[in-house]
């Protein structure tokens, strides 16, 4: 059978072209989606600045048992541990390391105490170690003796470069400057606790002894030391893995769907040939084996052929992730085994699975059909389709329920995506029924409207239900997925922007182009003449708490209570009371945690510290402000840096106040004053990620599904040759034949687009309702028009060109040649 399959495959490449195109494109899509994921999985924060340390002791950066959650803020260790670690046998030295954000002479860098230089090690090339608070050693090329402005967590001042040090090993992720240990610790702002304690080994060093000596802290050795160096990369990596995994999974799912429907169609189209084999006495078993072998060969060849273009695309995508700061610069991009396996195994398995049902039916075709009418349409719905359709429908239902109740934009978007996928599969399986219903509804009107073309087209729709279903399925997929992906983003963005506009109604916003604003900036801003009120708003996260067990909670530190034009939509309590150990909660979060005003609730701060806080206010604008607002005293010392994010200012005369506030730039380099419009547009990194990545993913999915649309429709239109020829032989003019083809194309497009839109609407409504309370998702009409217009146009072209070709050939020949 393998031989027969090989011969058959070789001799009739044309037959397999459609299936091959689908497989190549699918495999490329899976590669493109899988490569960034694999790169993300394999990329770990590099060990650079701690290269000379045998072990690094940090706080527990990851919390939770089953679902490990990397915390959003740096988890620190007690400095008292230094003495205990130094006493462990085999330890030459234990050094407490702190990092303070800094800008020296306009250059972004990180400040450490001089004793940390030994951890890399940095060695002095010139000069001497820092001895006073205004002396600095620079870890990069700089002029000895230069006087430079140092901006860190307080007002800028001038320091003197007293030494130039070079790292023994390359340090690429960041640059370092060194102050005295005391000055660095003061600027870092968390006395008594260190970012990490690094251990220099002596002979007889044993990491397990260190573990015994530390309690609750984490001892990192080898490559894991990188996690202590860049805890933010750990969280970024988790985000990156989530983003790329969701795209990779989506790509795999869509690819399998397209391969299965194309392979099914290709078998369906070869029924005549299969009947011929039956006529020359091939047993149904032999036919099934032949079809399976063919599917395996085509699957293997097609998937393999898609690897290279997929790898090119995947590399470009991963590079884009790095360029847009979504992935760390040290992302190592390579076409590893994971995406290749997924692409090839997915392709072959999907192809085999697809021919399982179709092949069984085809192998039962009576041999006599080879010589007569082979274009027998099977019954409306086989058991496979019926079961598949019902299972997919059953899968979509609980997702709809989840989407209707969640308030997290990301969860809502992911759920909408999954809902759309399940519905696409369901409608794809049950498509013939849809075609039959459409024929019943549209048929009579069509026949009256166009007695020849419309009549023939609607008759075809009624009987060739599978053909119409196969033809409209990729269109439905394109429209459903593109609309769901794109408009879940626009709906979320729109909701966030609207809430921001309502929540941040101040006149001016003060931000920094550098690492952030020192806390003292807020007092200075308040003291600026013309400023009526000002509050500081700093993004942070809470660890899993308040009824959430598996992810961080987006939050803001609100410094200054009421004022600055901040309107959180408070429904109970007052933000003016947000002082000390207090917290304000978003309404849904408060409901979930059963918290009311005055309750003391257990929270986990961003660095993993568990504490209690009193609820002083409940508010509604959580898309703009996150689920919790923390008093600065609650969060103090538990952030990676003590810097402020944005200062919101309300002023009597905004332009005069803005001018005076800009004067603060002398004390705080990098300070920028902007109007409120710039505050209300989504600015945080997450949304920026979505704005670049979301449309790109949509574009890739759209491009792939468009290939599927063209491929399927050309496959179908090419097989119409005999029917078109017959129509011409019994007296149909080319115009009449074209009219029928146009009406059919119209029906296919109308069915595909309508179903796609219906699915997208079903998936988006709960998302919209959950996020905004309105049942109207935000749909920019130009984008919707582009999706519908381009897919309809592609479908028209894909159907019209083969029809034109069929009309050019002589009908007698066309009908004789057969299929």
């Amino acid at each position, binding site marked *: 059978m393998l031989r027969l399959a090989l011969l058959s495959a070789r001799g009739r490449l044309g037959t397999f072209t459609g299936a091959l195109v689908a497989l190549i494109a699918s495999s490329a899509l899976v590669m493109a989606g899988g490569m960034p994921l694999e790169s993300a999985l394999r990329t770990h924060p590099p060990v650079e600045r701690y290269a000379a340390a045998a072990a690094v002791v940090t706080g527990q950066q990851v919390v939770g048992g089953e679902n490990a959650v990397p915390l959003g803020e740096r988890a620190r260790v007690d400095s008292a541990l230094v003495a205990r670690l130094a006493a462990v046998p085999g330890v030459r030295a234990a050094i407490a390391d702190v990092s303070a954000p800094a800008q020296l002479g306009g250059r972004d860098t990180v400040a450490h105490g001089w004793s940390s230089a030994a951890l890399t090690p940095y060695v002095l090339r010139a000069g001497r170690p820092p001895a006073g608070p205004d002396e600095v050693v620079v870890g990069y090329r700089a002029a000895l003796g230069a006087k430079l402005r140092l901006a860190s967590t307080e007002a800028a001042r001038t320091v003197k470069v007293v030494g130039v040090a070079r790292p023994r090993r390359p340090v690429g992720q960041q640059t370092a400057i060194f102050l005295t240990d005391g000055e660095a610790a003061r600027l870092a702002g968390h006395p008594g606790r260190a970012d990490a304690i690094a251990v220099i080994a002596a002979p007889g060093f044993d990491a397990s002894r260190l573990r015994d000596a530390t309690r609750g802290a984490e001892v990192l050795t080898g490559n894991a030391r990188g996690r202590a160096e860049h805890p933010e990369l750990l969280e970024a990596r988790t985000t990156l893995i989530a983003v790329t995994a969701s795209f990779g999974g989506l790509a795999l799912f869509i690819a399998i769907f397209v391969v299965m429907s194309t392979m099914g169609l290709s078998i369906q189209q070869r029924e005549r040939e299969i009947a011929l084999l039956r006529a020359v006495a091939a047993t149904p078993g032999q036919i099934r084996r032949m079809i399976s072998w063919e599917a395996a060969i085509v699957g293997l060849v097609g998937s393999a052929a898609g690897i290279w273009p997929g790898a090119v695309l995947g590399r470009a995508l991963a590079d884009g992730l790095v360029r847009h700061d979504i992935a760390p610069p040290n992302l190592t991009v390579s076409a590893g085994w994971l995406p290749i396996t997924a692409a090839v195994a997915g392709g072959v398995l999907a192809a085999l699975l697809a021919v399982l049902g179709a092949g069984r039916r085809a192998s039962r075709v009576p041999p006599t059909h080879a010589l007569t009418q082979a274009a027998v349409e099977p019954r409306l719905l086989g058991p496979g389709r019926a079961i598949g359709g019902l299972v997919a429908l059953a899968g979509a239902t609980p997702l709809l329920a989840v989407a209707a109740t969640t308030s997290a934009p990301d969860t809502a978007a992911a759920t909408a995506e999954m809902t759309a996928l399940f519905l696409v599969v369901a409608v794809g399986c049950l498509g013939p029924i849809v075609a039959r219903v459409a024929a019943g509804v549209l048929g009579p009107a069509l026949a009256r409207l166009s007695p020849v073309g419309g009549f023939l087209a609607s008759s*075809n729709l009624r009987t060739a239900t599978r053909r119409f279903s196969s033809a409209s399925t990729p269109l439905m997929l394109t429209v459903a997925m593109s609309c769901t992906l794109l408009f879940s983003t626009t709906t979320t963005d729109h909701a966030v922007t609207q809430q921001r506009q309502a929540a941040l109604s101040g006149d001016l916003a003060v931000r920094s182009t550098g690492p952030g604003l020192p806390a003292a900036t807020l007092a200075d801003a308040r003291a600026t003449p013309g400023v009526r009120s000002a509050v500081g708003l700093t993004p942070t996260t809470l660890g899993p708490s308040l009824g959430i067990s598996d992810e961080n909670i987006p939050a803001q530190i609100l410094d200054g209570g009421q004022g600055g034009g901040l309107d959180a939509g408070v429904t109970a309590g007052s933000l003016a009371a947000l002082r000390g150990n207090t917290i304000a909660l978003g309404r849904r979060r408060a409901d979930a945690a059963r918290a009311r005003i005055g309750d003391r609730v257990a929270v986990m701060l961003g660095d993993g510290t568990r504490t209690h806080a009193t609820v002083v206010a409940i508010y509604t604008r959580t898309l703009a402000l996150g689920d919790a607002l923390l008093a600065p005293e609650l969060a103090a010392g538990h952030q990676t840096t003590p810097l402020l994010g944005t200062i919101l200012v309300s002023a009597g005369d905004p332009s005069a106040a803005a001018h005076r506030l800009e004067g603060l730039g002398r004390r705080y380099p990098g300070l920028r004053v902007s109007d409120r419009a710039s505050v209300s547009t989504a600015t945080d990194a997450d949304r920026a990620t979505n704005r670049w990545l979301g449309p790109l993913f949509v574009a890739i999915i759209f491009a792939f599904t468009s290939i599927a649309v063209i491929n399927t429709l050309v496959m179908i239109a090419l097989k119409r040759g005999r029917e078109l020829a017959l129509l011409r032989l019994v007296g149909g003019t080319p115009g009449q034949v074209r009219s029928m083809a146009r009406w059919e194309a119209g029906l296919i497009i109308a069915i595909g687009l309508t179903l796609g839109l219906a699915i997208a609407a079903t998936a988006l409504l709960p998302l919209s309702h959950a996020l905004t309370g309105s049942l109207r998702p935000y749909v920019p009409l130009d984008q919707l028009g582009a999706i519908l217009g381009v897919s309809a146009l592609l479908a028209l072209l894909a159907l019209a060109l083969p029809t034109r070709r069929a009309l050019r050939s002589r009908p007698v020949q066309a009908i004789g040649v057969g299929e």
Partner: protein
Amino acid sequence: MRTLARAVPAAAVAAPAITLRDVRKVHGEGDGAVVALGGISVELPRGSFTAIMGPSGSGKSTFLNVAAGLDRPTSGTVALGETELAGLSERRLTILRRERVGFVFQAFNLMPSLTVTQNIGLPLRLDGRRPRRAEVREVAARVGLDDRLRHRPAQLSGGQQQRVAIARALVTRPEVVFADEPTGALDSKTGRGVLALLREVVDQDGHTVVMVTHDPVAAAHADRVILLADGQIVGMLDAPDADEVAEQLAHLGD
């Protein structure tokens, strides 16, 4: 080369149903050119049943296609009744075929999505008319299928499908019905039924039938057999019987 201006029965004083004069048909060009018809002249009288026979490659299918206006001759003229086909555009030709010619092919005669009624009425519909039920039923009854009107082709046997095809060919009351191996895909018993039907439409309804076949038994149903070889008419048999035809065919190779 014989000229076949034969005296026709007195009843047929009008122009012949089909007239071919010096028809040559060459496929391809230059060295690869193949002469399919080498200058054929023939008249097929109205109300006659003619069978075209010959070995493979003799040009019998080309003859049929040229005579039916499906293919244009390289030189020479073809007339359907009094209408010369030479000057007609593709569109005019299609309309002429629709109104005045019927076709029955070896297989794939019917639109799979249409019922028997709709298939039979298709030429009328293409002509811009709404087929009247009585009209279609009458023709369907003529071929013995008036109890299958709502069936689709897939639900019919091969013989029944050919009957529907004949009914469709007859529904426009054409001047000529062309049949290309109409029994080629049928078993012999079913085939005989189809041939008898063609015979009937000539005898009882006065239609003109031109049929290409390679089966001497099928040819024996015709009034006359025209034998083709290498693009030339090499013989004619009136009121043939199957043995006679088979013998003539056997000698064509000599």
